[in-house]
């Protein structure tokens, strides 16, 4: 069995401006959405607060539950249904950062079973102090930043033999960000600035592969966060793990294409760069689709059967793997061509596609 019977020759690069427009639109929509909602919808891990997950015996409206909780420090909580409809599970959420959680689960159980007269199962209690939430947020941001930076070094080394230059760049950036963090610069902005500085560095040092990779990875992460904003899901600690997994998977995908570019470059030394990229994408296309499909199947199964706790995690991976596959072809590869006009002026219109 084969996906493509004949040798493929789709002109992906020729559609790069359409792709850039589409990608740009996606980014714009995500940014507008995030700004409109006042930033990502952080979960209790990052904001601090208390979440109690309870399982009831029958259906209740949120206000019934809230009333039953009167006088337990939980009375101004937000009640949400959770999981499947027949499960009668609810999340009781309080953002009061001064709350001490010891025994809150117990209190909720007592109040609910007394007032509603049924067996109440406390499934999970999560309390994160505001201080810890702040720290976790910092750690998560640093994790994503360092992961990108170290990958940039590896890519520059492996594909352009620019180990030294990339290591120096990464060293300077890590030193500068930790130095600025010591002096209390806001970490969120710091990381954003650092990322843009990284891209600028890559541009001027012509670390083409690294820059294309970083930009497309940022694209993947951003779009996934956008999908979370659209569907009103929360960014929790395990979602950060999912984001990093997306980064890992997506870079995996890009490297397969890069690897092929490196090989094709050696095969056809005189061919225009954009044709080389086209050939590489086409030659790896059946692999891209096959791997993407099997991974998606696994994730869809996880999404359906994995249970409510893992649901958002699987959703993040699903979105990330779709964007990751898209960005390998339509973001990472065309970016490699950005320098072309500078290096060889004739590059763009030199030869017809073939």
């Amino acid at each position, binding site marked *: 069995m084969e996906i493509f019977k004949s040798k493929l020759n789709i002109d992906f690069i020729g559609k790069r401006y359409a792709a850039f427009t589409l990608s740009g639109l996606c980014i714009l929509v995500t940014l507008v959405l995030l700004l409109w909602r006042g930033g990502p919808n952080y979960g209790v891990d990052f904001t601090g607060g208390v979440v109690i997950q309870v399982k009831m015996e029958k259906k209740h409206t949120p206000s019934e539950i809230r009333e039953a909780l009167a006088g337990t420090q939980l009375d101004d909580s937000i009640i949400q249904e959770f999981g499947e409809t027949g499960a009668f599970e609810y999340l009781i959420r309080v953002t009061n950062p001064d709350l001490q959680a010891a025994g809150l689960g117990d209190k909720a159980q007592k109040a609910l079973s007394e007032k509603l007269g049924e067996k109440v199962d406390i499934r999970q209690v999560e309390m994160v102090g505001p201080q810890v939430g702040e720290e976790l947020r910092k*750690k998560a941001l640093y994790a994503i930043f360092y*992961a990108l930076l170290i990958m940039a070094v*590896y890519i520059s080394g492996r594909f352009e033999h620019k180990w030294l230059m990339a290591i120096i760049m990464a060293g300077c950036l890590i030193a500068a960000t930790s130095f600025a963090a010591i002096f209390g610069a806001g970490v969120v902005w710091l990381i954003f600035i650092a990322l843009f500085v990284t891209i600028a560095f890559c541009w001027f040092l012509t670390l083409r592969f690294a820059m294309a990779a970083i930009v497309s990875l940022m694209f993947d992460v951003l779009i996934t966060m956008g999908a979370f904003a659209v569907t009103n899901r929360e960014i929790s600690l395990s979602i950060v793990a999912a984001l990093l997994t997306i980064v890992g998977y997506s870079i*995996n995908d890009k490297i397969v294409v890069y690897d092929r570019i490196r090989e094709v470059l050696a095969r056809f030394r005189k061919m225009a760069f954009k044709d080389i990229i086209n050939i590489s994408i086409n030659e790896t296309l059946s692999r891209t689709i096959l791997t993407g499909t099997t991974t998606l199947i*696994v994730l869809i199964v*996880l999404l359906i059967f994995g249970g409510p706790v893992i649901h958002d995690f699987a959703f993040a991976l699903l979105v990330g793997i779709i964007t990751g596959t898209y960005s390998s072809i339509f973001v990472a590869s065309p970016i490699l061509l950005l320098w072309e006009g500078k290096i060889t002026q004739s590059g763009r219109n030199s030869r017809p596609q073939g």
Partner: protein
Amino acid sequence: MKRLGWRAGIAAALMVIAFVFLVPSMTQELPPWWSGVLPKDKIHLGLDLQGGVHLILEVEVKKAAESYLERVVEDLKPDLRKSKIRVLDLKRRGIEGIELTLPPDQDTKDLETLLGSTYPSFKLEPGVKDEKGRTYLLSLLDQERTQIFKMAADQALETIRNRIDQFGVTEPDIRPQTGHRILIQLPGIKDPKRAIDLIGKTARMEFKLVDEENSLEEALKGNVPAGSEILHESAVDRKTGRKTSVPFLLKKRAPLTGESITDARVQLDTQMGEPYVSLSFDSRGARVFERITGENVGKRLAIVLDDKVYSAPVIRDKISGGKAQITGAFTMDDAKDLAIVLRAGALPAPVKILEERTVGPSLGKDSIDQGLQSMLIGGIIVLILVALYYRLAGLIADVTLLLNIPFILGGLAMFGATLTLPGIAGIILTIGMSVDANVLIFERIREELRMGKPARAAMEAGFSRAVVTILDSNVTTMIAALVLLQFGTGPIRGFAVTLMIGLVSNVLTAVFMARIVFDYLYVHKRWKTISIG
């Protein structure tokens, strides 16, 4: 084919090792000959899978420094009197040190001698003159303060460890963190609230005499006499369930504290059938207790725990022998917990809960069931797909894919890693990604075949070219996993470890082991065609 034999041997050895590490997790009881060098650890299940409590506590070490300074203030008073230094005012200033006001005519020579001989951990700062006299700061040396902080944190860790040991939790994980924090994980615990109460209680026990010279009514109006304080006894009426709070006017000074307690046991009152806690004092404590009870017959002695009055019995007679009992409306669990905290001792400073995550056992079980179910379904679909698409080569790939499972689980057991819910997701994801390695190799082989190469050459070229890509892509994913391990906490670290083990196992099975089979078929057996779809 000597090399092939060698490789097959290594592969077999690796498989045996993986299974050996898996044996403890698969059997309830290990056979008796399974001892010594063979691994005994099961795969640890994370709290999200087996239920339990995860806590991060902060020891409020500043409070320890405050109480240290308060004690020094008390010690300084008689010493200053002895050295004939007149002092207008003496009090603690934050955690910086002790403020001391001398009359204008007093010089600091005697004070400096006293400090040098008895209080070497303080430095005399130059004074500030005001209308009354000169105010000096005896500042606590920085290294001294750091030492107090460290001692408090260490002692709190030790005390909490003691309490948890006596409470009886299997495999608790208690470890210090930076910033005077303590991470506590109690897997499989049934009554999280009780455990948290037990851990978080400061448990400062004091015996204080009831102030019977002054009127409680007067004090409640706001005129608390110097040297006395109001503390409350809270009691729950067993019949009505109503809570009452009874105020007591107590002498502030506690002649006897929990430090003198050597043992505390729960006992049952034979007449009432109610539990009580019996205490034993050390010899100094016994002497003090005998003296207090002897001097105050007919008065009431309050037993105070963390500024709450437990009971205030009337002293009927002098009590010698160093034994006392605490009665009260205890439940059996209350009495047991009180005995535990009294035996394990007080915390040197209060602790604050920074983070609490409790997972009920029912949720953990559901998560495991659902995780395994999706792993099964997803896995089977992928295996069928690969076999359909690549025929015989696909079947070989399926076998190597299945081998990932013992390798990953064995790796988890070997490294003592914790399997968490995101970790199960990680395994599922690795299955998806290990398909990628196979796909890369097989697509390569197909390409080589299309170019007209014979089976063996196509297979060899396909493997050697694809391996470069596979290694590159695995290294980069490994970078993400390493960063995750570095910055992650709890379940995420579990995920990172699972991912890393999964990546290694991918390369091992898809590249190394699959190659052995292909070499056997096309080099050893000299097959001429490849069934690769």
